[in-house]
């Protein structure tokens, strides 16, 4: 009953979002585009990093790979095929990275993935400079932001659906086990290496696709633009803030943060940084369990209060 209801509600929300470009102007569409982009990034990131607690900063590596693949291939291949190729490249890189990071844990993994993103950026730069002899690539497409937005929205829906299915299946449990204690997980019969690899690959392919879909927005593709480490950081922060261990955590982290960024940079361009920083600190202090944790807590308390009250009323009535 409840599940059916939430499914209908979700479908309605996505339909409304899909129809939005017909009612909103370009700015509105661009805004939603950016928002959905980050929601997808954060959700895809949390798919792997949330339950396993392997905090990855390689986000922008895959994002950039996606964008670059499009910049290189968009003239030679039909656009759907470009996406497929991008996904494949992302997959191969993810498997290589995954295999090589199996032994790393904690902060060593974090910084390794950061180093990896930088390495890929350096290699792409070096390749472009020395082999192709030019650095920036131009990417002129004949469709507008709505098309980019719809593609992203679809990817976002797929990402959330994957997240939902993984959570519900035993693989969700598997990831939590890995996050808690890999040794125990192994001894319980879980092939941890394979599971980690598979999920990391899935998450990375989605991130690659986000980059590939979003690239036409910038017309000009350059390593400094598409391998901008800020993207990794923002993704991580959004997911952590919302609560990376939950399906909707990244969403409730990304949406308010994105709104906040937008609002602050529009209204306080000179003090943006300071206000944002202070708000950030305040959020950590006020919401120790992330936004979703906060919501859940209050929701349960609210419900508890309400049912207690109704109990009381019943008793008084009786």
């Amino acid at each position, binding site marked *: 009953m409840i599940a059916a209801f939430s499914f209908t509600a979700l479908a309605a929300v996505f339909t409304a979002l899909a129809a939005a470009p017909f009612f909103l102007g370009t700015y509105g569409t661009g805004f939603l585009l950016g928002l959905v982009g980050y929601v997808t990034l954060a959700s895809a990131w949390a798919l792997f990093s949330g339950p396993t607690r392997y905090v990855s900063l390689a986000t922008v590596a895959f994002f950039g790979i996606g964008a670059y693949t499009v910049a290189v291939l968009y003239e030679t291949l039909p656009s759907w095929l470009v996406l497929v190729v991008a996904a494949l490249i992302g997959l191969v890189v993810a498997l290589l990275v995954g295999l090589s990071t199996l032994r790393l844990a904690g902060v060593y993994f974090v910084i390794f993935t950061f180093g990896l993103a930088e390495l890929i950026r350096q290699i792409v730069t070096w390749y472009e400079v020395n082999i192709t002899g030019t650095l920036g690539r131009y990417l002129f497409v004949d469709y507008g932001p709505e098309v980019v937005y719809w593609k992203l929205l679809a990817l976002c829906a797929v990402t959330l659906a994957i997240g939902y299915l993984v959570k519900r299946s*035993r693989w969700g*449990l*598997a990831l*939590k*086990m890995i*996050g*808690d*204690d890999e*040794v*125990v*997980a*192994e*001894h*319980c*019969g*879980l*092939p*941890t*290496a394979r599971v980690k690899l598979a999920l990391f690959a899935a998450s990375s392919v989605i991130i690659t696709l986000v980059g590939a879909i979003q690239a036409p927005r910038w017309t000009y593709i350059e390593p400094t633009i598409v391998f901008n480490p800020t993207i990794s950081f923002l993704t991580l922060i959004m997911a952590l803030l919302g609560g990376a*261990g939950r399906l909707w955590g990244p969403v409730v982290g990304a949406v308010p943060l994105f709104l906040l960024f937008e609002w602050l940079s529009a209204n306080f361009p000179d003090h943006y940084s300071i206000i944002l920083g202070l708000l950030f600190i305040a959020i950590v202090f006020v919401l120790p369990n992330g936004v979703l944790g906060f919501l859940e807590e209050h929701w349960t308390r609210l419900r508890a209060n309400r049912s207690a009250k109704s109990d009381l009323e019943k008793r008084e009535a009786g």
Partner: protein
Amino acid sequence: MQDLLDVRNLTKRFGGLTAVNDLSFTLRQGEVAALLGPNGSGKTTALNMISGFQPASSGTVLLDGERLTGRPPHWISHAGVARTFQLVRVLSSLNVEENILAAVMFRKNPPAKETAQEEVQRLLEDVGLAGRSNENAASLTYIDQKRMELARALASKPKLLLLDEWLAGLNPSELSIGIGLISNLNEKGITILLVEHVMDAIRALCPRAVVMNAGRKIADGATAEVLRDPEVVRAYLGGAHAVA
């Protein structure tokens, strides 16, 4: 009865230290044996190598004639070896029920979810944790965590169960419950290798004992005899407690 476990010339070196030195022994199907020895004699290390947690420096381990050495722990688990840890390890973000469910769902032939859940309840009952499904695993007391760990080990339907000081820290009445639990398991056909310092339990449970000292096997045989062996007494039991 045929040999279930066959440990041959197992050796583990840490830098200059040889923690397990050329250890060989076999366990028959259905046997309960103790692995004894002073602190630091290499018992846990031996279990670690059998269960695949640590790679052996040399030597082999066979289960039912199949080679375990060189295999990852999950493979060994699927082959039928389960273990508990000397210092309990719980999956702390999961509740009690999920801790067990995890092991049920990832054993060799996992059942459907509903059957799995029923099975988890039965396991919890078996170890005395019935009705505590939803408690957070991390907030259990030490002993209850141990019970949960045992249930988790059993959930993988092992042929061979490795218990590392599972009975340590139990008071005498709890101990007798624990002993009952283990002998029950044995009756169900599970072969058990028990590392333990609690002599009462050893005597009650294990007809046979293997004793290590400084990485080497120094005795192997009927428990009562082994415990009278002067070398075992000197290195392990100590004069005053030889008969405690």
